[in-house]
């Protein structure tokens, strides 16, 4: 017999977990006591939301469920934003929370909160453990649920007395749930129909979403697109599936997307949505699209098909197997006319003016990406900085771009970058954020120092919650309220106070030199960029 807390650690080890992100407290102490005895590396975050975001970054790079931990009550509620953020982007997380003792549940005791209840609308599944003997099966199921089908966060809430119960431990080798059987293989009839539709289309277009990363189908996507000679746009979550300069690629579509991508969307006759959920920021009026084109929708989640857009050819299944079958079965096709039309739009890139004494963020990000190694991971935060990044940070072969797409959670970039760096220490990882969002996550500089990892941070300082300011300017008669960030500190001095190398850059003339410093440093580095406050998003 072993203590259930030890069993929890053994479950994690059986799943191959090497790193966990968390923050302790009384109700999770037995589990921490067992972590103390294990070789699992624990990263101490400085706020529980960041434990979730760091696990998210880690999960997105490894494409496996990653683990975050919080104590009961306030620890668990602090984690909620990260759980919801992961849910919106289908990121596989295992969220472990401590809970008050089973005999006290429901009595409103100290640090008691019904976290499975609170998180219910935005978890894939959750468990409140009432029988310690069930723990091994619950962990097995949780990892299976989080990492298969449409991925997502799974919450395991473990009362402190349960953690201290002695149980017989045996980790189940397999999992079988009679109620959960995700569809993996695509229906062959539908695959045939899609091939015919693409072969017959004059102006087909791929819209590639984040589901393709989750399926690990990056290679298969490119193979299919190249063989079928179909041009592609991506959603925000699908950014970096195609290198920016790929001849078939037209950029990000949608409200904050680029002209070439949106024109392609408007002018195509057949749209192949893959691992994309037709979110409102990507497709403003789905009915208009559906009326004018043939819509093909491929997704692992049957509920996404037909949810936001009427579909002509639906196909449920795993994008990886489906795309490789499509690549194999698609016949000889050419869409030369369509492609050359699109090539012209693509080359039509708008000029950016520069404002004296400031960094032009768009030009700066292009220069930055030119300098960084091709496999760099770039994480964008939320706001104008995010859109600047989406549309200007150039992705090279093997590069990766990540952001909080579905929720648009400010404060995501630095912790996500920390998680990504822990997962891929050999790769460069950059977080790009705004001065507002940086102040929601700057406590993680301490985590970076404690972990001695090299994360590069760009803070776009426009002294405003720029995106909201712009919204107030355009939509509310320029009545600016609660958007000025007066009172913000000197971020360079702040970073240095943590022991992180840091500099400020205010003119484009110095940009390359500062980028060089950031890129060539083997330590963490924060670069504060002075950006004109009225710089526009697009």
């Amino acid at each position: 017999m072993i203590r259930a807390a030890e069993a929890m650690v053994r479950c994690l080890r059986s799943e191959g977990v090497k790193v966990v992100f968390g923050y302790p407290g009384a109700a999770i102490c037995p589990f921490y006591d067992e972590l103390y005895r294990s070789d699992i590396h624990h990263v101490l975050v400085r706020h529980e939301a960041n434990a979730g975001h760091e696990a998210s970054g880690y999960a997105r790079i490894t494409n496996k469920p990653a683990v975050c931990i919080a104590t009961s009550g306030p620890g668990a509620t602090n984690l909620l934003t990260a759980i919801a953020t992961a849910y919106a982007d289908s990121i596989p997380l295992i969220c472990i929370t401590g809970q008050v003792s089973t005999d006290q549940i429901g009595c409103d005791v100290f640090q008691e909160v019904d976290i499975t209840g609170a998180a219910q609308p935005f978890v894939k599944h959750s468990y409140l453990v009432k029988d310690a003997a069930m723990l091994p099966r619950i962990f097995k199921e949780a990892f299976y649920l989080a990492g298969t089908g449409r991925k997502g966060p799974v919450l395991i809430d473990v009362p402190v007395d349960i953690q201290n119960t002695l149980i017989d431990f045996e980790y189940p080798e397999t999992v079988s749930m009679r109620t959960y059987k995700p569809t993996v293989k695509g229906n062959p009839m539908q695959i045939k129909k899609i091939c015919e539709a693409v072969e017959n289309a004059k102006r087909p277009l791929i819209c590639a979403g984040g589901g393709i990363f989750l399926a690990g189908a990056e290679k298969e996507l490119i193979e299919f697109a190249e063989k079928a000679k179909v041009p592609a746009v991506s959603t925000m979550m699908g950014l970096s599936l195609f290198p920016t300069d790929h001849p078939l690629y037209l950029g990000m579509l949608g409200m904050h997307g680029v002209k070439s991508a949106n024109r392609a969307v408007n002018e195509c006759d057949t749209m192949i949505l893959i691992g994309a959920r037709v979110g409102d920021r990507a497709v403003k009026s789905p009915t208009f699209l559906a009326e004018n084109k043939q819509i093909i929708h491929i997704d692992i989640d049957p509920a996404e098909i037909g949810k936001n857009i009427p579909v002509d050819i639906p196909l449920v299944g795993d994008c990886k197997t489906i795309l490789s079958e499509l690549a194999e079965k698609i016949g000889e096709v050419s869409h030369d006319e369509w492609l050359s039309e699109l090539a012209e739009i693509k080359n039509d890139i708008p000029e950016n003016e520069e404002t004296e004494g400031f960094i032009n963020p768009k030009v700066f990000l292009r220069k930055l990406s030119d300098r960084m190694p091709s496999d760099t991971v770039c994480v964008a935060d939320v706001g104008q900085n995010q859109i600047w990044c989406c549309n200007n940070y150039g992705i090279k072969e093997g590069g990766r771009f990540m952001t909080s797409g579905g929720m648009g959670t400010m404060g995501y970039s630095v912790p996500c970058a920390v998680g990504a760096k822990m997962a891929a220490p050999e790769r460069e990882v950059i977080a790009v954020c705004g001065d507002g969002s940086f102040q929601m996550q700057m406590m993680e500089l301490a985590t970076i120092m404690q972990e001695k990892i090299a994360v590069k941070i760009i803070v776009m300082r426009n002294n405003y919650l720029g995106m909201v300011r712009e919204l107030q300017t355009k939509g509310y008669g320029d009545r600016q309220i609660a958007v000025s960030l007066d009172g913000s500190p000197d971020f360079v001095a702040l970073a240095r106070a943590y022991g992180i190398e840091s500099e400020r850059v205010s003119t484009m003339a110095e940009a390359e030199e500062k980028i060089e410093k950031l890129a060539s440093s083997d330590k963490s580095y924060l670069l504060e960029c002075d950006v004109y406050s009225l710089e526009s998003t697009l």
Partner: protein
Amino acid sequence: MKHTISVLVENHAGVLSRVSGLFSRRGFNIDSLAVGETDDPAISRITIVADGDEHTAQQIEKQLNKLVDTMKVRTLAPDELLARELQLIKVNATPSQRSEILTICEIMGAKIIDMTANTLTIEISDSTVHLKRMHDLLEGYGIKEIVRTGVIAIQKGSVTIK
């Protein structure tokens, strides 16, 4: 449009709140929800009557299917189902009205299960339409209280949802 949906779920703690939470979160309207164990105590059946267009009905079915505890979801077409609801009705009844009400109950297939000097308590189980008629018939006497279970439904013939 009304949709009758039969859902088989694992009989776990918290399942009902996941199901009802789904309806409120996605803005689906529930008319009634009835839940009970099946012949297998590990499985519960939830019968839901929901209101919405065809697209909503499809979404309800898909979203219910997505819940990890859901085993099976089936929307029953109106012409393939037998639906029943149980109601208990407490109605004012003076001694002189009793025999009238008794006749109504006999004709409508209801049963009197309790009685006081000036009330009768009636039990009736039937289709929603029939219950509405019963309600209209009793309304004139003064209905004091109605308790209803919500609709449960089963398919006609020998087919089953298992």
